[in-house]
């Protein structure tokens, strides 16, 4: 099973690189750092197009909307989108914009502005509980996103309401747009902050699929919402992009793409 999800992640990483190159869109480093997070949650929770019409489905929300290509890569890999769909990414007339818009199966929320997804996820988790649904709600945030006050409003709220069906994941790649996330604000110690707020915190290697999947596998026994603080590397998987924040905005040229795909490997 883990071989399978490893292959899935590799395939997603290739798609992310190809989309960025083809469409000339930025945020590649941020998209590469959360590949395993999305691969793990879609795979663990068996998020598939067949369950989309069911309101009681498990839902995955991408709050860090600038990683739109990672979401689209997951949706391609898990059967929501086709290669033809992906070919339209960021092209005029396409519904696959740089940041996700609502309306397509698989896209639970629009994102692009930070500090929205966790609050929406809380609403969905409450709706599921009020209606007796088994749904789990997963939401992926960035570390830079934790600059936003609404993240901490949500941090205060969810444990009070014992939303054990809520699973948040922070892509803690240690960078935000223009600086180290631990330097721009006093973000560290991030896991301790969430523990202090009353969340069930798992601190994992955000590229270790098994570790992420274990953290996603069971709701907290004490009814707390789950926070997975995932230590990641920005630009993960491509040696010359890893931990280099220039790739927040840079777009790979043809030669760089070829080198990157070679490093990522054959799917």
């Amino acid at each position, binding site marked *: 099973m883990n071989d399978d999800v490893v292959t899935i992640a590799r395939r997603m990483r290739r798609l992310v690189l190809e989309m960025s190159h083809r469409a000339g869109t930025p945020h590649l480093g941020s998209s590469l750092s959360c590949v395993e997070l999305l691969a793990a949650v879609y795979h663990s929770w068996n998020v598939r197009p067949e369950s989309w019409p069911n309101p009681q489905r498990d839902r995955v929300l991408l709050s860090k909307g600038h990683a739109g290509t990672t979401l689209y890569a997951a949706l391609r890999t898990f059967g929501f989108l086709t290669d033809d769909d992906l070919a339209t990414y960021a092209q005029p007339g396409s519904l696959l914009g740089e940041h996700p818009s*609502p309306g397509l199966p698989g896209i639970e929320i629009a994102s692009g502005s930070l500090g929205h997804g966790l*609050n*929406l996820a809380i609403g*969905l988790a*409450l709706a599921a509980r009020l*209606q007796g649904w088994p*749904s789990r709600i997963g939401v992926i945030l960035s570390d830079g996103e934790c600059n936003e006050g609404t993240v901490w409003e949500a941090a205060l*709220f969810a444990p009070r309401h014992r939303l054990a069906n809520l699973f948040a994941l922070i892509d803690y790649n240690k960078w935000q747009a223009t600086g180290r996330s631990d330097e721009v604000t006093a973000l560290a110690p991030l896991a301790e902050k969430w523990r202090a707020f009353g969340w069930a915190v798992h601190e994992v290697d955000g590229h270790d699929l098994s570790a992420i999947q274990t953290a996603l596998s069971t709701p907290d026994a004490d009814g707390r919402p789950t926070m997975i603080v995932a230590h990641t590397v920005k630009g993960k998987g491509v040696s010359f992009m890893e931990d280099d924040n220039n790739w927040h905005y840079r777009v790979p040229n043809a030669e760089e793409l070829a080198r990157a795909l070679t490093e990522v490997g054959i799917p």
Partner: protein
Amino acid sequence: MRNAFAEEITALAATDHRIVLLSGDIGNRLFDPFKARFPDRFINVGVAEANMVGIAAGLALGGMRPVTYTIASFAVYRAYEQIRVDVGYHNLPVVMVGTGAGLAYAANGPTHHSCEDVAVLRVIPNMTIACPADADELRALLRDSLQHAGPVYLRIGKKGEPRIHGTVPEMRLGRACVLRPGHDVVLLACGTILSEALDAAELLEEHGVSTEVVSFPTVKPLDEPLLEHVFSARSMIVTVEEHGRAGGLGGAIAEWLTDQPRQKARLLRLGTPDAFLHEAGEQEHARELCGLTAVSIAHAIQSALKPQA
């Protein structure tokens, strides 16, 4: 009006199990009956308006009918981006109730005044905005809002507003309601200022100005058939609102009018000035400062009617 809201939402929640009431830590005791009957469907989000709107949007995505409730100024300005992105962009059925709107909290100072809320919400796509004049209009519009498929902002008063209708009127979102006939001037009143408008019409009548009064609660979408009628059949249309002259009902109608063929009637907009009100004092005092009492409304109209030198 807030008591009527609490009563009405409690009654509606009994028939629609999807209704969830979220409060931004206000309404002390007001919602006790709601909480007693539907403890799971009342959520005090705390003093966190942006979170409240985001959670409401998530509830709506999950099939519920959330209603948020807090003081209008905080409901709108504090949560504007959540209203735009979470509620507006997703076009979700969230009813946002802003209580104590306009100058209802005059004594609390400009932090609590909301004379720009309609202006800033009106430009958000998918938004419906209604400002009921009294408890009966509120009940009618709340019922209709909970049937509406998209977001609604209900801009309501506080307490003790004069009751105008007496019974719940047949009022829908997007429809204005003629309350008093007249054939020279038409007063389009938006929100709780309607009672002043009705008194102003009495004063004008005493001076020989026949004045029609229309309760015009819905700023978006405008009741265009009514506007087409009054602008073609009357000589002066006056908007009255406890909101800035920019961007409220008067502003919306001015924009609409600009795109119409030339009309017979002229438009006069009465509202709050482009200024923060620093003076202490209750709503009546603030209305006096802003020229929004019956007497000053009547004076403004009489001046406008005088032939230009």
